[in-house]
Structures are given as C-alpha cells and as structure tokens.
C-alpha cells in the first residue's frame, strides 16, 4: 500500500481551509434561506413525478442549480418560491429531454404511499360531522389527481404550499387573473369529485337534503 504523500496531504488540507470568507458566508446563507425548504420541495417533487427516485433526483438537481446561481436570488423575496420555480423548470427540461410523458399517474403507487402512512397520521377532526371530514386522505388525493394538470398545479401551489397569487403567476408563467380563474374552476371540479365520492360512500350532502 502506498504511503500518503505528506506534501499532497498538506495541499489538500490547505485547499479545504482556503474556502474564501465570501464562499463561507454564501454557504451559511444558503442553508438558512434555501435548505430549510427541502421537505416542501421533496413533497412537491413527489406529487408531480409520482416516483420517489425521480423526486430525489429532481430535488438534488434543483439544489445544485440553486446553489450555483444563488447570487442571482433577489434577497428579501420568497426563497421558497424561487426554488419552486427552478424545480418546475428542471422538471419540464427533464421530461422534455427524456421525452417522458408527464402527468401519468401510478395509482398503485399512491395506494402504497397512503398505506405506509395510514397509521402514523391521524387527524383530530375525525369526529366532525361534516361529511368532508370523514373522507379518506386517499380519496381526496385521488380527486386532486383527477383534475387536469393546469388546475391541479395551482391548487397545489396555493392550498398546499401557501404561495401568493403573484408567486404562482410567476411560477406558471401566466397572469394573476388566469391563476384566479383556474383556482375557481379547479375547486369547483374538485368539489364535484368529492361529492361523487361522498355519495358512493353513502354520505348525504347538503344538496341531497
């Protein structure tokens, strides 16, 4: 076995220590501003790819790009929105490049997801008499997935991720008025789906009474 070259070792150590103060500052700022949104990004990536491996790759790639271009992030604006925009662009590029067909949903995969978390997540609103509250996570999610992508996307960004209309408009490259009307129509479609589930499960809705 080769003995490590002390000179080379010294160079390696120096390189490691030679992290410039500016680079060091960037790292700390990046961790505070960007890395804190890791769970939200993974979650969204999982919802759009429906595949844990793809989601991981997508998030990793997003952070690599975000770190490289962190200087172009406008300080004081919403970093989470900036990251989501990068992730979305990445997603579009990857699916175009591989000519994969986006929006294909593996329903068995969703079932598995919900199966694995079924017992760990219990809602406290279970006793609520509102029929909505007796619905299963899985049904609500299936209803969401049944929507055309343009509606599902704005609902996810607004209701799940809590972005403002302005942030969403920027992410989906559409005017705020479009975001507004997509949310309205999307929620109406979703409502109809949920009422359909409620009816097949034997719950009466307000309109039946």
């Amino acid at each position: 076995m080769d003995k490590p070259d002390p000179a080379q070792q010294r160079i390696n150590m120096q390189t490691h220590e030679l992290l410039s103060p500016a680079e060091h500052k960037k790292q700390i700022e990046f961790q505070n501003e960007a890395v804190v949104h890791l769970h939200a990004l993974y979650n969204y990536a999982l919802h759009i790819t429906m595949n844990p491996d793809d989601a991981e790759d997508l998030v990793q790639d997003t952070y690599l790009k975000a770190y490289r271009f962190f200087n172009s992030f406008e300080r004081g604006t919403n970093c989470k929105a900036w990251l989501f925009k990068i992730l979305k662009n990445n997603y579009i590029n990857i699916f175009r490049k591989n000519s994969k067909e986006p929006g294909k949903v593996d329903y068995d995969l969703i079932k598995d997801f919900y199966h694995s978390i079924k017992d760990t997540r219990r809602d406290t609103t279970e006793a609520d008499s509102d029929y909505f509250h007796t619905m299963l996570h899985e049904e609500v999610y299936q209803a969401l997935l049944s929507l055309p992508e343009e509606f599902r996307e704005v609902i996810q960004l607004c209701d799940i991720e809590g972005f403002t209309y302005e942030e969403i408009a920027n992410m989906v490259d559409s005017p705020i008025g479009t975001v507004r009307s997509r949310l309205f129509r999307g929620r109406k479609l979703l409502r109809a789906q949920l009422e359909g589930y409620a009816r097949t499960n034997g719950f009466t809705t307000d309109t039946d009474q």
Partner: protein
Amino acid sequence: MNCNEALLLISAAVDGELSFTEKQQFLLHISKCEGCYGEFDDAQRTKMIIKERVVRFKAPQTLINSIMQLTSLSPKETF
C-alpha cells in the same frame, strides 16, 4: 356588485387576495345573495379539505445528507 362580478372574486376572497375595497363590496354582496354565498362557502371548504387531507411526506435522510453535503464542500471538491 352583481353576481358575475362576485363570482370572479370568489377564489381571491377565499385566499385573502382581495383589496380592502373589493373585500368590503364582496362581503356586502354575499351577505345578501344566497347563491354567491353558497359558492364562496363551497370554495372555502374545498380549500380546507385539501389543506387538511393531503398528506405531506418527509424527504428521506439520504437526500437531506446529500443536500447538506452540497453546502459544506471545499471549492476544489465542488468544481
């Protein structure tokens, strides 16, 4: 404000995106119009159900580790 104008504002009302004046006019309208109030209520409840019922997943530890590593590498290792 008439019903058509109110309907256009429903999602913005649900999401707290109305201006002060819009909000006042909208609230006044739905206090008198049952149909628009129903639409507003439905939209609001639909938003709540999505918020409460869609499960959030945590990123796997391997991913967390690799992202953390990304921001603690020396310049030589990064490039």
